[in-house]
């Protein structure tokens, strides 16, 4: 038996684990006791991380569409057809008719190569990935406010906080190892304020739980800032020396008195005052947030409001302080860092800058497009309207994971050519013209970047099944077929190129990536990496406070649709369930889709635990079992989106945040009907 040290494939925590390999198969997994963050612990998904790898459903050979069917093909046939189709579209309709969705599940190297292929070989900046639906507002919001759109501290540092404000994050279920550090901070005396419409486990353990109406976050956050300034709990020296825009920001926030904020958000004024004094009095305050903040049509504003709060209280740049966006995929941070975004190259170097382009043109020896491309949903809209003709989707399942399923399906079906690479057949591969079988995380080498900016190795433990290949291999092959250069002997080689072109990764190489990995920025070969950002200055000098105003969410409950529907995840499943629903123990925990409803609402409607109900919105409807949950407030519904048999995103809409282009996934007006038994 061998034990291969690698990084977990699920959420952004980036836990260190060992895959147990016996006779060429993965037989188990266990935590790394030396890992700087996870320290010998894992969540249940991590303990089961290797379980899906040898599943018989794995895609084992390339497939090509013939009529209604997908027929086995050779790699050469599949890639030749892909190259020919993409070149044909490019010639006839121009490069803007092509797009690439990369994968937050892929490695840094693969994301880098894909964005390079999109730009250098296809000639388009239409490259994006699932960050658009999770932390695009963080990249935009924190990027503007602080100069870097990533977690400012390290997860372990939460243990030194005095007060932790947790907003829109069901941390014990979605980022259990972050929760572990929060719980330890709590047992050392830190105060917890949890803000969530649902009474989550962490809310039960918190000193204060605020339950605002969905989509009203700007109002209560502005209110906290207002109270903190009024009560003289602001860090005046920090504001003066390290920020700009305070006066305008305070002016905007001062309209949000506790009473006004109570009126908008439904949070009692007294609780807002209490929260402000807990956070304002803390000498080390930290803000932890996740999808409950970002997946809103005003996501970028909410992120900015939180940044304003952290800056006004001087809670950035020290141990135990900072802003902790929790990213949902193990490498969604890395995919952003690698420039799998329509407006930036690797390291957030903007494509519209002639100097930046010149550097990449010289390195890649190819012409590069200068106009920022389309974001993920914009690409689908373009496909719907017929202006986007060819799309490559790598390791994503947008039919289930993107909002408004029927519209996504229609858009994908309308494409002239769709290629999908994945490890399992999905609802999206079913629509493809070419399907490529990918190696999973246990079958290839590379790096992932965790939510605390920690670049870590992922290592090959077993061979991929059948003819499946590591994605970096076929990306290089396809890039060459498309006429651009891609000569790499290994993922380590790719990392060397990334380091040469990406200042924040400049000092990173495989030789340096030991058990602790390296936290970017790591600009030079002798740089130890950066655990805490913005210690003495922000990348653009001063941090930017920006006034933000509350605007009503696009949908609110009405007579026809009286419930407020929120979507999210369960502890036991991940995303569209392709991996966890094939992990027997996890699937046993939550085998069927469900909707959570407040017991009082349920009683009024004659609904019991397990009653079949139909949840409807203006987009569609799904049939699920009801689960009575005390934690769900009256008038609210919670629906997890893992289940293809009851896809939550059949119900969600595509209202976009004007800045970050994220969709409003947390607020939909819905109604509920009892189904005939």
């Amino acid at each position, binding site marked *: *038996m*061998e*034990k291969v*040290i690698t990084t977990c494939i699920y959420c952004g925590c980036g836990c*260190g*684990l*060992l895959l*147990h390999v*016996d006779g060429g198969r*993965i*037989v*188990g*997994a*266990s*935590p*790394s*006791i*030396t*890992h*700087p963050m996870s*320290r*010998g*612990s*894992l*969540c*249940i998904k*991590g*303990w089961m991380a290797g*379980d899906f790898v040898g*599943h*018989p459903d794995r895609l084992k050979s390339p497939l090509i569409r013939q009529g209604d069917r997908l027929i086995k093909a050779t790699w050469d046939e599949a890639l030749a057809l892909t190259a020919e189709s993409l070149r044909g579209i490019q010639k006839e309709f121009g490069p803007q008719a092509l797009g690439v969705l990369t994968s937050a599940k892929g490695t840094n190297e693969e994301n880098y190569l894909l964005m390079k292929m999109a730009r250098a070989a296809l000639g388009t900046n239409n490259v994006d990935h699932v960050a658009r639906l999770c932390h695009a507002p963080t990249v935009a919001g924190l990027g503007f406010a602080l100069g870097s759109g990533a977690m400012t501290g390290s997860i372990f540092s939460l*243990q030194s906080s005095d007060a932790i404000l947790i907003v829109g994050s069901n941390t*014990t279920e979605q980022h*259990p*190892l972050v*929760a*572990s550090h929060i*719980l*330890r901070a*709590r*047992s*050392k005396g830190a105060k917890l304020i949890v803000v969530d419409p649902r009474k989550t*486990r962490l809310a*039960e*353990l918190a000193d204060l739980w605020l339950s605002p109406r969905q989509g009203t976050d700007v109002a209560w956050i502005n209110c906290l800032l207002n109270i903190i300034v009024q009560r003289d709990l602001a860090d005046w020296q920090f504001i003066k020396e390290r920020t700009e825009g305070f006066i305008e920001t305070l002016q905007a926030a001062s309209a949000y008195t506790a009473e006004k904020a109570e009126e908008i958000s439904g949070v009692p004024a007294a609780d807002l005052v209490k929260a402000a004094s807990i956070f304002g009095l803390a000498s080390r305050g930290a803000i932890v947030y996740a999808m409950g903040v970002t997946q809103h049509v005003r996501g970028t504003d909410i992120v900015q409001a939180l940044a304003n709060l952290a800056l006004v209280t001087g809670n950035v740049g020290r141990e135990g302080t900072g802003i902790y966006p929790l990213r949902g995929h193990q490498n969604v941070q890395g995919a952003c860092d690698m420039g799998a975004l329509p407006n930036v190259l690797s390291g957030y170097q903007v494509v519209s800058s002639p100097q930046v382009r010149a550097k990449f043109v010289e390195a890649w020896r190819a012409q590069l497009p200068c106009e920022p491309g389309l974001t993920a949903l914009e690409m689908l809209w373009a496909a719907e309207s017929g202006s986007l003709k060819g799309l490559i989707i790598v390791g994503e399942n947008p039919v289930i994971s993107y909002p408004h399923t029927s519209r996504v399906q229609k858009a994908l079906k309308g494409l002239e050519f769709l290629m999908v690479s994945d490890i399992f057949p999905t609802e999206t591969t079913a629509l493809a013209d070419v399907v490529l079988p990918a190696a999973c995380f246990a079958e290839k080498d590379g790096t992932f970047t965790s939510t605390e900016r920690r670049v870590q190795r992922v290592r090959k433990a077993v061979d991929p099944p059948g003819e499946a290949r590591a994605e970096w291999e076929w990306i290089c092959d396809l890039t060459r077929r498309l006429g651009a250069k891609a000569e790499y002997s290994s993922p380590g080689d790719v990392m060397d190129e990334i380091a040469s072109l990406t200042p924040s990764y400049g000092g990173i190489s495989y030789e340096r990536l*030991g*058990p602790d990995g390296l936290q970017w920025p790591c600009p030079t070969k002798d740089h130890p990496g950066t655990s805490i950002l913005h210690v003495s200055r922000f990348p653009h000098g001063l941090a930017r406070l920006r006034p933000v105003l509350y605007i009503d969410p696009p949908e609110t409950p009405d007579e026809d649709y009286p419930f407020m529907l929120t979507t999210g995840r369960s*502890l036991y499943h991940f995303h569209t369930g392709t991996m966890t629903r094939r992990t*027997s*123990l996890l699937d*046993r*925990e939550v085998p069927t889709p469900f909707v959570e409803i407040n017991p009082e609402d349920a009683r009024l409607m004659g609904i019991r*635990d*397990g009653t079949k109900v139909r949840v409807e919105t203006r987009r569609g409807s799904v049939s699920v079992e009801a689960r009575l949950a005390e934690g769900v407030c009256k008038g609210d519904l919670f629906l997890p989106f893992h289940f293809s048999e009851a896809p939550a995103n059949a119900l969600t809409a595509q209202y976009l945040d004007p800045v970050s282009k994220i969709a409003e996934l947390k607020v939909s007006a819905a109604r509920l009907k009892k189904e005939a038994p």
Partner: protein
Amino acid sequence: MKAFLPKHKLPLLLEALRGQMEVIAPVSTDAGPAFVTWQGQPIDLMGKPLSPVTEFLLPHKEALFTYVQEAGRYTFKEEMIPSRLLFGIRPCDLHAIALLDRIFGREPPDQAYFRRRRATALVVQNCTSPGKECFCVGLEAGPEAKDPCDLQLTDIGDGFLCQAETPVGILILNAGRVLLQPALPEHFQEKTKLLQEARRAMPRDRSCSQIRQAMQRADWEALGRECLSCGGCSFVCPVCHCFNILDLGVPDGQRLRCRDSCILSGFSRLTGGANPRRTPGQRLRHWYQEKFEDIPQITGLTGCVGCGRCHLTCPAAINRVDLSVVSRLMGDGSEARR
């Protein structure tokens, strides 16, 4: 048979054994010590691997047999079981194996377990360097091996005092005959002294009855609110042995036995959806109940060997040993990173 093996000769002994069977030993890795197939890697006999050696007898996931359908008839094939030498296991793990032997040996005996058990030789290393989390002494599971094994080693400084207890143990020593020196009375005196020190280094207030008392006092619902339902305590426990069976693949495939955990809600959920252990607190209580009440009743032995691994791996702030929801202070964190 008794002998003395100078420390620097240990790899030579393992090298000699490696030709005869798969040698599993605790090697030093970047992720801490781990039991793997020894192929010349540096041995780490000081640290205790987090993943216990019992996974070689009761794998996390094991194919009980393969089934193949041909012309409407099924044929079944069992997998080959490798002969293995588990080297350098601790007395606590050995005691866990003795417990598993009793549990799986009850009528009808568990054939899958005993196929592996019979093909396994055990070399135990007496524990002269217990970790901060260890309390085997209170449960009479260590630091000196008392359960049947093939060969017993004690690190007495510059070498190992080797005591073969079975014919297999003698064969193991004979494989390295030229490396051995005679065992001297001083070696035995040193062994006694070191083990006495190890006993004294461990807390003595954690016996079965003391933990039972803590269970009486514990606020299980408060503990349950902290529990993150990761199942880690079951997965690192050398005594935990619950499993789940599933058939993977149609029409051909494998019948798999996978580890399971009573910490998970689905473990006790009934078909109709009701659950007799509905809350994490009830499940946590059950975990202790099994170890300190039920297993003793069935086997006569406490179902905990005091290895403290559950404490090391628990992501919650629960002190798994005294059952208090208290901080595992910074000191503990760094200790886990030994």
